């Protein structure tokens, strides 16, 4: 009788310690994961690595993901990098670089922009938003102009 009570008590204690320990682990685990910085270290990203140096040939362009919207990086035949928002100002299609004419072209309604982002023909009413381009080591960094 006495022994039975004792086993029941130790079983209870064992269960209590076990579940309490599990609970503590279940609390600490998310906290540690929370503290550890995520892959994208910043909330407001005004800067992104658009491409690597050498990735683009002269007189070509590349669409890159900038947040939830596309951006376009152009390596001009003159040898400099230009970056713009790739969202056409007419109806928000994604624009592309057209090497034969050396301008930025929107396939949806044939809108054209020059390499400063200015709308030069077709329906787009306003220029593409221009971004700043900087080269840091092997990376081509595109950043939104602030202020």
């Amino acid at each position: 009788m006495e022994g039975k009570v004792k086993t029941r008590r130790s079983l209870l204690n064992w269960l209590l310690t076990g579940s309490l320990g599990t609970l503590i682990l279940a609390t600490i685990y998310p906290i540690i994961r929370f503290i550890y910085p995520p892959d994208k270290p910043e909330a407001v990203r005004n800067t992104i690595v658009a491409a690597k140096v050498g990735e683009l040939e002269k007189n070509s362009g590349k669409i890159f993901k900038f947040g939830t919207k596309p951006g376009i990086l152009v390596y001009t035949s003159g040898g400099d990098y230009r970056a713009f928002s790739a969202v056409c100002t007419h109806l928000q299609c994604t624009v592309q670089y057209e090497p034969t004419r050396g301008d930025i072209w929107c396939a949806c309604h044939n809108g054209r922009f020059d390499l400063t982002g200015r709308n030069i023909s077709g329906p787009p009413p306003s220029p593409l938003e221009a971004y700043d381009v900087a080269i840091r080591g092997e990376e081509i960094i595109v950043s939104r102009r602030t202020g």
Partner: protein
Amino acid sequence: MTRDRGRKIYDWLDSRVGLSSVVELLRQKQVPKHRHTTWYYFGGMTLFLFVIQIITGIFLLLYYRPTAEAAYESVKFIMTEVEFGWLMRSIHSWSANLMIAVMLIHMFSVFFLKSYRKPREVTWISGVLLLFLSLAFGFSGYLLPWNKLAYFATKVGTDIAGSIPVVGEPVLRLLRGGEEVTGATLTRFFGVHVAILPMIATFMLGLHLFLIQKHGMALPLKEAREKEAGGDLQNIPFMPNFLLRDAIGWIIALGFLVFLASVFPWELGEKADPLASAPAGIKPEWFFMFMFQTLKFIPGHILFIEGEILGILAFSTAGAILLFIPFIDKQANRLQDNRSLTIAGAIALIYFIIFTILGYIY
């Protein structure tokens, strides 16, 4: 073997810190056992939720940015990019609401049990101040995600403060940090929420807990009268019986929190746009709803006074009465039940519940 080592460490600490006096205190501590003992647990539960608020709040600070440009994005970042960030934020939000709910239960139970009577007047006052502080925590925290609903709720809320005669204008400017609700307001609310209020609340909570420790648990009137008449009252030891019961309360609260946070993750909403027109369905947090709803019902003018001002006046008076209840109810000190005050309290509670519900129906 391990027990010996534990003993050694304990002895070492005891001779330096004086643990044994604390242990002795806890061992000696007794909690009265009677038909209303259940209500005692709500104070502990409030404390537990407050601790959760502090912990989750501190962790959220690692990623939160208090500017109009980045606040919404940083909360979104916490929710979408940071591992378990959504959980951290959801728990912080749910726990805040749960804490105020439990705190209200705690307050009303103390009120109806008349535990504020001599010598616990200061305990009561510090408790009511803690409630006010919690409401301020809620009001300032609501704006921090900088979403549309919170933005306009803050606008309306501060507008109400601004309609007070004479002092309204400077108070409004003080609250908003300018004429309008802007990034300046956000930064200001942030500072209040994470530094000023915690500082005052910590002090107030320390006082509150110290006084509870000093006076012990209050008895309901009937039991107190019996004790006075020399009756033998049942007690249970604080350690471990009461503490374990308290722990059950905490754990249930924690379980409920985790359940709420995982099944109903706190929404982020749309980013605030100060230039946009106010959206339909602006509502304050639920614990302000009864006031918000009352102000909606009050006619524009009552006699020669503006309805809104009258409402504010009424709520300020009610707040003051609440704060000074121990001095209003002299009968409780003589262990007599002040019926009219109990009824008034019941009416206030019913009013609170009905107007809160009405706020969500309309």
